[in-house]
């Protein structure tokens, strides 16, 4: 046996498919990495003919776009997978759904459109604030919208960071048990929890209810009225 072999070269994918998937119920607490491991295992259980990267530790070809934060539910996460042999997109959706754990579901599979990342520039969130007084929420929304800037700070991997949430907000409305916000996906990324903090800033009466529970309803492009999904 020869020590230190060269890694085998893997063939490039013959098909690229884009997937939209949902994280619901208890699975909202799965982190992006947790989802990644569960998804790769589902691929193996379902015997999906994946294309692999080259190198000493070949990985199935998967790229994720704009992962939502741990704790948020979502109806609209996107990824692209590369396959070694062509498969029927509907088969892939069904076979993965029978292999994935509860609460993780593939919603749609299509031939990967070009420039997918550029078509995911806005998100539509629904945030429930259990126990909050609806009139307080409505008032907070009004006050925040009336401001042209609003700074919040959040602990990030790089330490405490301060940024302006207001410019990212395309639309913000109070609803029955919280609010809905449509916001730009950009740098720095404004998350629903940042909007909650901003609302609590302007209406301290809203504090004490924790960060709320967020649900991403859609991603896509902002057409001035709503978020248009890529597929």
């Amino acid at each position, binding site marked *: 046996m020869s020590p230190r072999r060269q890694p085998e070269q893997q063939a490039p994918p013959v098909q690229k498919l884009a997937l939209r998937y949902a994280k619901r119920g208890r699975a909202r607490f799965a982190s992006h990495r947790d989802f990644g491991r569960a998804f790769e295992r589902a691929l193996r259980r379902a015997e999906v003919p994946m294309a692999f990267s080259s190198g000493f530790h070949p990985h199935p070809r998967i790229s994720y776009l704009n992962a939502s934060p741990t704790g948020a539910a979502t109806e609209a996460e996107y990824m692209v997978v590369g396959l070694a042999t062509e498969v029927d997109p509907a088969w892939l959706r069904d*076979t993965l759904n029978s292999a994935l754990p509860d609460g993780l579901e593939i919603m749609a599979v299509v031939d990967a459109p070009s420039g997918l990342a550029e078509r995911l520039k806005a998100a539509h969130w629904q945030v429930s604030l259990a126990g909050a007084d609806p009139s307080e929420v409505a008032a907070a929304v009004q006050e925040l919208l009336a401001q042209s800037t609003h700074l919040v700070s959040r602990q990030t991997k790089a330490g405490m960071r301060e940024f302006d949430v207001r410019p990212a907000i395309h639309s913000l409305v109070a609803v029955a048990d919280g609010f809905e916000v449509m916001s730009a996906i950009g740098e720095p990324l404004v998350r629903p929890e940042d909007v909650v903090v901003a609302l609590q800033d302007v209406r301290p009466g809203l504090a004490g209810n924790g960060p709320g529970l967020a649900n991403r309803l859609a991603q896509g492009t902002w057409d001035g009225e709503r978020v248009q999904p890529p597929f």
Partner: protein
Amino acid sequence: MSAHVTSLYPRLEPLLAQVSKPVQYIGGEVNSVTRDFETAEVRWVLMYPDAYEVGQPNQGMAILYELLNEPDWMLAERSFSIWPDLAALMRRDGLPQFTLENHLPIKAFDLVGVSFSTELGYTNLLEALDLAGIPLHSVDRGEDDPLVIAGGHAAFNPEPIADFIDAAVLGDGEEASMRISELVRAWKLSGRPGGRDGLLDQLAQRGLAYVPSRYEVSYGDDHAIAAVQARPGIPARVRKHTLMELDEWPYPAKPIVPLAETVHERYSVEIFRGCTRGCRFCQAGMITRPVRERNIQTVGKMVEAGLAATGLEEVGLLSLSSADHSEIGPITKQLAERYSDSFVSLSLPSTRVDAFNIDLAAELSRNGRRSGLTFAPEGGTERLRKVINKMVTEDDLIHTVAAAFGAGWRQVKLYFMCGLPTETDEDVVAIAGMAARVIEEGRRAAGTRDVRCTISIGGFVPKSHTPFQWAAQADPETIDRRLRLLREKVREDRRFGRAISVRYHDGKPGMIEGLLSRGDRRVGAVIERVWRSGGVMDGWSEHFSFDRWVAAAEAELTPQGVDLEWYTTRERPVTEVLPWDHLDAGLDRDWLWQDYSDAIAGAGVDDCRWSGCYDCGVCPELGTEIQIGPTGRSLLPLKVVQHSA
């Protein structure tokens, strides 16, 4: 044991949004089993008293979970230790310890089975019981409380937790837990005769479990145990359970695939249970005798089904000394061939030097995946290795390591213990010389200077049911001094020192493990005091507080006329009644004492698998026998899978 309970999840969800790693509390993993609570006749909680990431990969739990969820009249759900951040919010909101399947309070179940692979889980037991609203002390529990049953290796001396558990199961749990379930079912169906006490009496009378409350412990003027007296009608000694014919028990077949990250992400097959190498420090080897193998075909079928059911990409061939399997060559070779195209890798837990060979090395390194190699010489000199019966010469080790380096490995890890009986400073310092030779020979065999050796060393803790059960544990000062001398010696080595690293655990935590391992019922008060002063998660160095344990030991033990040293650094006379003498692993006490004497004299003992029975007592006492191959068979062909792509 009331029947009308509802899921705690809706109240838990907002709390989960505020704690770290909430995914560990949600359940719903692939292969988890969620059954109807109301209609089940017998309901188990299987609890591992540590965090999910450590407990979920436990093989014993996985086996029992599948078995207990098989009959349609039974259900088993899981529960793990809750980290202090969530526990605080739960106490604030009045939420109890819950299960992961239906998120039900564990107090609502019939049985709470707790698996102890280490004694460091004891404070976590108290934390879970308290969070659950189950009285800490067995005597205070009422008819509505579940029975708390300990199992796992530490249950062989459950005396330190005797007040907190209702019963302990010794040995293999497969048949024992099923028989307990059947007993509970019959007892419930017949209107719970005698209530909770009646059930515990039956468990004890039938020898199914050890019920501490049925045994009276008295102490003499010397503060040692005077006698352990069983109540009338209760067996004087309780025997361990031994599962035979492992081929007929191919579990776990569909282990849960965690969504959260855990310490082990592999499908493990126990290729055999038990070990008769006779290492004198090893409780696991002593209490799991005799050796019972699974044959190559069972292993092959389990791997095939297990990978298909989980989607994992690593297979662990698990046992106390996997390279000793009579068919290990064919098993690894054929599995490696079978899975060579599918990115599945094989692994063995740490390997014995003498059982390792170059073929095995090659099979384990296919696919270019060569993780570090681990060997466990345990002692630095041949003299000391004779004392512990680890019969391997330094030349054996060097040859094996050279072969591995020649085959492409660049790293070895060597495991040692410090503070073994009869050990001197020289025995420990000699480890540095051994590591230097590893590097010297390794560089030659590898043809490069780029090789490394890691020495991993920790303090030895004498355990019950071993020849060293009488031995004095070394005090932390001695251990820390020897570890310091070893590190200095490595650092002084100009030629090889920089290729050697030393990983060590200091001596203090070992004292507490020693107290818990060989303690008696008086130690229970120490555990309780530590927990009451905030001690939990003792297996995690950032949570473990030596000072808290020392203070609690002083407060609780001094009034009893004993102390921490009495339990740990004191050698026991052969005449002393040991707290676990009435708990029978099958080992003959005289044989153990003889083996201890042989150890001190530096005399070895062979392996009964190959050199004939030397009367350790287990097989005749328990009616068991060695069950090994080789069978001469090969893997069965793979089942054909339908592909619909």
